[in-house]
């Protein structure tokens, strides 16, 4: 995969422009950066990420914490949290970063209380993003639930090229999606409960489409992000159809910067055929599906 790590990663301050709920599950955080930070994030590829320091933000007040997160909210966090971006816009020495996030635990509960003007520390850009393969004419995006955000960013980048893009987006139900379609992209939605679009898994919808539409697989590429089990399914389908596939994996990360070796991903060395660990934060989070041992 083409190396797309920026050399200029660093520890930067970002200030909150907006933070609002969109849909049932997602929140959108917009951050302003400037100077060196803007420079560093200028060439960020979709799928790259940053590590957010959220431990100093306040918790929502008791009644605003969902019951199932009440005990988790008590944990005093010290580690940063990784987030990819749904959009990045840099103009000159100023920039805007956009994160779509779900509230799952102590860090994201704190993220929720950030308000305009607040400052947070981020480290980035980190990792290797999706590599846009110029020779492919059809990009198939497959997103599941929390995996949507980086694919929005990717869709935007793809829209600048001539690649035709189609997006398959799955969720438990329609209300859990951050958007009902991806801008400028033909979007097919599937929901587990059938409340929107195709009823069933996004992988089933993808397979059905491939069988029916018979795209030229040599010219197609799949980009996917979502729950690991879904991506494993997508990878399998990609293998069956002989389509190249990039997966954006998630691991619990202590550092995000290659220091701790916590974020191991079992991979097969394509040359030696031996299995071994790569690091999600440094070698990924985007991998070629056929090197990953799911």
């Amino acid at each position, binding site marked *: 995969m083409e190396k797309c790590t920026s050399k200029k990663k660093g520890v930067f301050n970002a200030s909150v422009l907006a933070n609002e709920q969109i849909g049932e599950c997602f929140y959108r955080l917009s951050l302003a950066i400037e100077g060196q930070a803007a420079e560093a994030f200028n060439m960020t590829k979709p799928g790259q990420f940053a590590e957010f320091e959220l431990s100093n933000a306040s918790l929502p007040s008791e009644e605003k914490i969902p019951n199932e997160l009440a005990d988790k909210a008590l*944990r005093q966090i*010290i*580690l940063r949290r990784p987030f990819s971006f749904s959009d990045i816009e840099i103009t000159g020495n100023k920039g805007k970063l956009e994160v779509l996030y779900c509230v799952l635990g102590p860090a994201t509960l704190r993220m929720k209380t950030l308000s305009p003007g607040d400052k947070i520390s981020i480290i980035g850009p980190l990792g290797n993003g999706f590599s846009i393969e110029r020779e492919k004419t059809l990009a198939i995006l497959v997103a599941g639930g929390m995996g949507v955000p980086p694919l929005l960013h990717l869709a935007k980048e793809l829209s600048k090229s001539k690649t035709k893009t189609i997006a398959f987006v799955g969720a438990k139900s329609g209300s859990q999606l951050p958007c009902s379609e991806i801008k400028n992209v033909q979007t097919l939605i599937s929901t587990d409960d059938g409340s929107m679009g195709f009823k069933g898994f996004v992988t089933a919808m993808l397979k059905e489409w491939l069988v029916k539409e018979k795209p030229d697989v040599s010219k197609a590429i799949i980009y996917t992000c979502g729950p690991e089990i879904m991506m494993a399914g997508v990878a399998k389908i990609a293998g069956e159809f002989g389509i190249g596939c990039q997966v954006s994996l998630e*691991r619990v990360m202590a550092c995000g*910067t290659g*220091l*701790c*070796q*916590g974020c*191991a991903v079992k991979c097969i060395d394509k040359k030696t055929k031996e299995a071994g660990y790569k690091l999600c934060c440094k070698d990924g989070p985007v991998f070629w599906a056929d090197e990953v041992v799911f």
Partner: protein
Amino acid sequence: MNKVDLTIDFAGLKLKSPVFTASGTCGYADELDDFMDIGRLGGFITKSITIEKRDGNPVPRIVETNSGMLNAIGLANVGVEKFIAEKLPLLKNYKTPFFVNIAGKTIDEYIAVAEKLAQFEQIAGFELNISCPNVKKGGITFGTDPQLIHQITSAVKKAGGKKILITKLTPNVTDISITAKAAIEAGTDALSMINTFTAMVIDIETRKPVLANRTGGLSGPAIKPIAVYLVNKVYNEVAKSANVPILGGGGIRSTADAVEFLIAGATAVSIGTASFIYPDTAIKIIDGIEDYCRRHKIERVGDLTGSLK
């Protein structure tokens, strides 16, 4: 007061500053290099190196706890041969004393690693990891038995030739002064303390341990007050009289934390988990210690060591 002398005498080595990065928390130097001038460190300690390559444990290897984290990396490393071939040459680029942390399953494995590395000039010394709680054999067992500590310390010291040997103690013992004494009597040049506490986090939904390895080592600010106590105890009871320097650490995030360890009896401090949050923590602490000394009219940072009233 104009200038603070930040250099320290560490077991005969003159080091630029009293701040090290801790083993396993700073990669192989290049990752950290993006964030700071590692040339200013007193020392850089590598991830544990073993005779054979080790893949490490399955994931999850990491789980956060209150003011701390557990890790069960499982000594993932490239193995000593590949380390020599691929990583060692890179170290030449840095003007930092490198210490290679050695681990193994048997005493022979430790000796073999030390022997292979003894010849390389780029290496200032070894840190003996007899205290890693995340491997099944060796590790923790070595570190809790004074006789084994004596055996392994003297063997590695011999195998390492002229290299400085730092023995890293585990806090998982009844009386750490006894293990410290064993290492000193076996000829260690310095002590490193403390390694992590064995610990467990359970996922109450699945009723399984969160870590694939079931248990992991607790590090981070949570353990700091225990580490400070243990450093002070070992300093008073054995290290001071034996004139053996202590590399103190465990939960250091700030200058104030580092100074606590120095006052307690450490000659230098190591920064571990904190580098995950701010990768440039070690450098900020070097600057902070300088400020502290200036404010308190302390001319040599070495004067802080063991200055607890």
